[in-house]
Every structure is written in C-alpha cells, then in structure tokens.
C-alpha cells in the first residue's frame, strides 16, 4: 500500500497529464478533428482567393483558351464563367467551395474545402472542377469539409471509355495521373480516348469526365492497363463544385 502511495505521489501528476493528453487527442481523432479544421478555416480566411483571381490551368488546350479569353475579356467574365458552370450542372444543391488547404500529411491526397454542413455538404458528395472529376467528400464539419481526390491510390472507381464503352477500374497513381485496369483482355482503347465514370460505379454518378488516356500497356497481366492523365488540374485548382450524390439507375 505504502509503495503505491509513494509511486502515486511521484508520478501521479505526470500520469494524469499523459492520460489527459492521450484522451484529448483520441477525442479529436474520433470527431475527425472538426474543431481543428474549423480553427484552420477561420485563420486562413484572409488568404482565401476570391473568384476574380485568374487561374492557371495545366491543360495546354485550356491554357490556350484562357489566354484568348484574357486577351479579350476582363476578370468579371471569369466569374460569370464560373457561375455559368454551376448553372450548367443542373443539379439542385450544388455548392461552390474554395480550396483552403491540401492534405495535412503525405499519405493521403486530400483537399480541405471552406464550405461544410452549414452550406449543405454531406459525406459522399461528388466534387467536380472545370476539367473533370476531382473526388468525393469523406468528412464534413460545420464550415469545412475534406475531399479524397481521385489521384489518391486508395480511390477506386468504375470507369468506361467514352468512345468504345469498354469498362475498367481506375486507381489513382500520383498527383495528375491514374491507372485503369480493364476487364477485357483486348480492350478497344488508344491514346487520346476520353475516360468517364461508368454506370456501374457505386460512388459516382455516370458520365462524369475523369481524364484522357496517355498510354496503353497491352502486355500487362492479368489485364491490360492504361495510364490516364486526369483532366482536372489538381495542382492549380482553387475552386470546386460540390454536388449531392445521385444513385445510378440499376
């Protein structure tokens, strides 16, 4: 008994502090850090870009179109173009959200958005940007949300080649590339083909453009593999559109 008392006197405060720290961190982890991302959103508000800043998009064709626009029109037209993109989406409840942060570690490829459940964003919502599919929402707090990008290696979605309707499984590879593994041994695919989400995808609605085929490796086993260049320029994005998930007709 006496030894327990003496041990408690010496290490009691340290032990309780350790338990407090571990308990607090566990709580934050279980709530997916909602408190922390809210604080981050408040602090980063002065740095958030307004929609009138010109974007540098990575696609060569898009750069060409941007240059032509900028030569003739003003930044005001850029804002109208963005709003017009939301109008074209024709989905009720589409929210335009700014990207306020990237991933807080190097394992996951995520974005942190500056809109959350207060604006109607829910887990599982689809995230698009000028260019194509970006990803889906994996966690939501009051004013922020987190997107898991298609370029993350753990992202898997069913895709189809728009031209020949061959199906495959897309998996992220790096920041701007993804890899598609086809179901057929001899798929009808060539470089330049456009890849879109397939009707059999469970997490994404059909027909969303994902990327363009860069190269095909027919000799890979067990099935041919194609490297896709993602059409949404992940590195240069500053605004995305979040729309609710709709079920694909079975």
């Amino acid at each position, binding site marked *: 008994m006496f030894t327990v008392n003496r041990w408690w006197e010496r290490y009691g405060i340290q032990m309780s502090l350790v338990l407090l720290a571990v308990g607090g961190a566990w709580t934050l982890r279980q709530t997916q850090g909602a408190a922390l991302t809210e604080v981050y959103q408040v602090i980063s508000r002065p740095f958030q870009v307004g929609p009138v800043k010109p974007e540098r998009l990575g696609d060569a064709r898009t750069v060409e179109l941007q240059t032509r626009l900028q030569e003739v029109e003003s930044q005001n037209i850029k804002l109208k173009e963005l709003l017009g993109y939301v109008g074209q989406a024709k989905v009720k409840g589409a929210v335009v959200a700014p990207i306020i942060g990237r991933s807080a*570690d190097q394992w996951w490829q*995520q974005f*942190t958005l500056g809109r959350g459940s207060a604006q109607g964003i829910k887990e599982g919502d689809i995230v698009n940007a000028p260019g194509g599919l970006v990803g889906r929402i994996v966690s939501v707090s009051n004013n922020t949300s987190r997107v898991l990008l298609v370029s993350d290696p753990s992202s898997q979605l069913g895709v189809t080649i728009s031209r020949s309707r061959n199906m495959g499984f897309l998996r992220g*590879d*790096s920041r701007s590339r993804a890899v598609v593994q086809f179901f057929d041994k001899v798929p009808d695919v060539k470089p330049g083909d456009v890849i879109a989400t397939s009707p059999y995808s469970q997490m994404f609605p059909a027909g969303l453009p994902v990327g363009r085929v860069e190269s095909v490796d027919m000799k890979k086993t067990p099935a041919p593999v194609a490297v896709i260049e993602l059409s949404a320029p992940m590195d240069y994005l500053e605004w995305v559109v979040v729309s609710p998930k709709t079920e694909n007709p079975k």
Partner: protein
Amino acid sequence: MNSVSRWHPRTRQLVNWTVTIGSVLLCLLVSPTRFPGMELLGIGPNWLLIWVVAWSVKRPAFQGAVAGLVVGLLQDAVTSPEPTHALSLAVVGLVTARIQKQRYIQEDFISVALIVFGMSVLAETIAIVQFSFTGHQNLPDIWIYHQRIALASAILSSLWAPVIYYPLNRWWQQIKAAEQS
C-alpha cells in the same frame, strides 16, 4: 536567459505547457498549407514529425513515445484515422529519444536535420507496412508510390526542421536551466 528563472515556478510551468501545446497546434494548422517554396511535388514538410523529433531528442524514451502517440492521434484527426499515424510517430519519438544524441554530438542544427531525415524515412516505412496490412490490392504500386513521397517528404522535412527545432529547443533549455537552479 535569466528572466525565466526569476519567474514564479507555477507561472513558469503554465507558460511552458502553453508553449508546448501551442507549438503542436501551430504545426497542425500549418500542415494543410502549401506556401510556395515550402513544397516539393505537392508535398509539404511533415511539421508534426519535426515537432516530435524536437521534443524527443533531449528527453527520455517514455516521454518521446507518448508525445508521438498524442501527436499521431491529432494528425489522424485532420486526415484519416485508418491507418493511424500514432504508431509511426510513437516509434519515431521512441527511437529519437533512445539515440541520445547529446552524448555523442553537441552540435544541434545539422544533427537534428539528419535525424529528421532518417525518422521521416522510418515513418514512411512503417506507413507502407500499415497499408499492406489494411488489405489494399496492388502492393507493389503502393510501395513505389510511398517510396517516391518518402524521399520528397524526408528532404523537405529535414530542410525545414531547424525552423521548429531552434526556438523550441531554446525555450526548453531555458526552462530546464531555470528548474535546476
């Protein structure tokens, strides 16, 4: 240097804890940013790993491991909980403390940068092991992916380590000197 020792011990302890917890929160809040010049291939420095190394390098093994565990759980909170970062950061804290750098090298800057480099590689290796246990298919591709980011992350973290290490180390040295006098 002397001003801290003139404070009341309770005040000193309180300010010390505020600085410690405040620096963790600062590292957490800086992690999602990518300021130009601070990123390589879209990856930023692993600020929380640098903090764990700064804490553990002159502390006993148990404190290093607990700090790694807590900071790892916090990193889970802002990214994704499975697989957990707590394991890799706890091992980093433990190994850094066990190195007992002070017995061999008094110099701080370069040795800490090298330790951060090595610990970053160690943390990525543990990550690869964790990912292989979660049942991901395509293990070779995950290997290659993580090797790529491991190098970029290690270089960046070791280059930016002194930014976190130097002020924190100065502060904790002052506290230690004040406590002993």
